[in-house]
């Protein structure tokens, strides 16, 4: 049924001398019913990519297919998609019911069927008692659910989410994340979810697309991305605290960068000599910031364990099976 195919997708702005290319040839396939997260820092092009799938931005090069159909020249309304916006984009002058029914009314669906669909979606999202209210009278979390309800009633082939949780406070964000996961399990609709938050990405994604400056650096499951990052960018973007990337580690290779996550380092009697700079207690764990030679590194230890003094020397041994090697020039995994 519905899969999304991105073939050599390119986006350029401007013409001639002032041309700016922001997306450099993205290739990816999203399986039917898959929940894919597009994650990356601000300005990496993830929203642009999503909006190209939506039809809100023109596709400068390459092809996008939805459900096997090339949609480069197809209007958003014809693509059988639904989108949840960052600022909800609810029609302020309509009730919650009318907001959700809007797209269905345009399709000239019979009134009873509209009623049925809206009630069903409202049931799933616990909005039943809010149907006659206007957006002004709702809280942020409620508005977010109405935005999702509007998408659900259309029963589209694809759901597109554009940073929908960014405007919610931390607690609400966590709650809504779980609701979105539940929703996906129930409805099983192919979803593309854009976020800059790697925690959201790791928890929601079945597979994730890590983007950097218009390039897709890696497209894989959260495990793959975490355990086998394809580049130094992915390695340092995913995981908190970020992976240590060392050029001149002892035992390192020429022209290669050694990567080791802070939690995969044992502190003991032998290993690298690391001069301690600061120690942070984070409750269940401790972070030791130190220097190996002239490079900074972070080591994570359990809370009850070692608490070295600043300026002391500790010995850190990285676990052999958790070492990553990246080419120093390209940053790519070797």
């Amino acid at each position: 049924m519905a899969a999304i195919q991105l073939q050599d997708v390119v986006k350029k702005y401007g013409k001639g001398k002032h041309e700016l290319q922001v997306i450099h040839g993205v290739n990816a396939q999203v399986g039917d019913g898959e929940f894919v997260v597009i994650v990356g820092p601000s300005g990496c092009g993830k929203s642009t990519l999503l909006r190209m799938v939506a039809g809100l931005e023109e596709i400068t090069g390459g092809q996008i297919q939805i459900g096997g159909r090339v949609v480069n020249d197809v209007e958003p309304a014809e693509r059988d998609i639904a989108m949840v916006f960052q600022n909800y984009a609810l029609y302020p002058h309509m009730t919650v019911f009318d907001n959700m029914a809007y797209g269905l009314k345009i399709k000239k669906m019979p009134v009873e069927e509209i009623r049925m669909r809206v009630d069903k979606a409202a049931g799933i999202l616990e909005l039943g008692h809010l149907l006659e209210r206007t957006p002004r009278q709702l809280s942020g979390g409620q508005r977010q659910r109405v935005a999702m309800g509007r998408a659900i009633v259309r029963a589209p082939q694809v759901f597109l989410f554009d940073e929908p949780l960014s405007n919610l406070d931390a607690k609400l964000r966590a709650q809504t994340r779980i609701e979105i996961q539940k929703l996906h399990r129930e409805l099983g609709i192919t979803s593309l979810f854009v976020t800059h938050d790697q925690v959201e990405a790791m928890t929601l994604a079945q597979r994730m697309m890590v983007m950097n400056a218009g390039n897709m650096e890696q497209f894989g499951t959260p495990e793959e991305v975490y355990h086998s990052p394809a580049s130094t960018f992915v390695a340092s973007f995913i995981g908190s605290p970020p992976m240590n990337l060392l050029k001149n580690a002892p035992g390192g290779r020429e022209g290669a960068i050694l990567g080791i996550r802070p939690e995969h380092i044992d502190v003991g009697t032998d290993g690298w000599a690391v001069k301690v700079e600061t120690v942070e207690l984070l409750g269940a764990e401790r972070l030791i910031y130190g220097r190996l030679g002239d490079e900074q590194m972070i080591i994570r230890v359990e809370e009850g364990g070692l608490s070295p003094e600043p300026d002391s020397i500790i010995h850190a041994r990285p676990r052999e099976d958790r070492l990553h090697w990246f080419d120093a020039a390209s940053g790519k995994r070797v």
Partner: protein
Amino acid sequence: MEKRVTFRSTWLPWALIAPQVLVIAVFFFWPAAQTLIQSFQQQDAFGTSVQWIGLENFHNLFNDPTYLASFRVTAVFSLLVAVFGILLSLVLAVFADRVVRGVLFYRTFLIWPYAVAPAVAGVVWMFLLSPSIGVAAYWLHRAEIGWDPLLNSNDAMALVVMASVWKQISYNFLFFVAGLQSIPRSLIEAAAIDGAGPWRRFWTIQFPLLSPTTFFLLVINVVYAFFDTFGIIDAATHGGPGKDTSILVYKVYFDGFKALDLGGSAAQSAILMVIVVALTVVQFRFVEKKVNY
């Protein structure tokens, strides 16, 4: 809203506010009060005899067919000016909103009529549509359309309406453009994804959300038609033929300065005051509600 931090001085605020208070006392409140008082009096043109006659001036006015006719003329005039002014500028604003590049160009050339004096606009349009020498009048005659604003009341009304709308388009246009731009783009995009085409998007999303602006402009245009068009009327038709384009404010002028009926003119002014205050109150009460997104 009040300021938390204020300065202390016993004499400075009075000194600062004095110029304005002085000016408005002498040139606003005193004349306004005089207007109200005079409306209850009858005096001859030389002011030698003054008689207090209570509401008689008002009574006479409301029984005076020419006054009632002037009311009707003003109502028709302001309705036409407001409706056409708003419609035309809305169309232009909607299309201007779609333009990505060159908006500044279009705006520059659409807003300058605001700068034209009503009286000048009146002279220009009268010249264009003068049945004897006007170019536009010539074309109308060629097209077999009878046109004589000097004799035909409807033609005269059309003339002043056209001149007034022409001048007011820029003002309305600016407000509509600002109103359209204050609607978040994501609403339009959401509607597009929901399947709404541009026409439907306009009617179901943009137009409803523009309603505060539209209502505001309705009030403004009516006030404009009531008062600021004096120059147009005087230049183009002198309120004629007969009294058929003599709007209320024109009648006040005519009766007061030409016919020298001071009491009657003052009474008319008083009534106009009530109307303006009512319109202003309506505007502040109902229009100052903003739509939240």
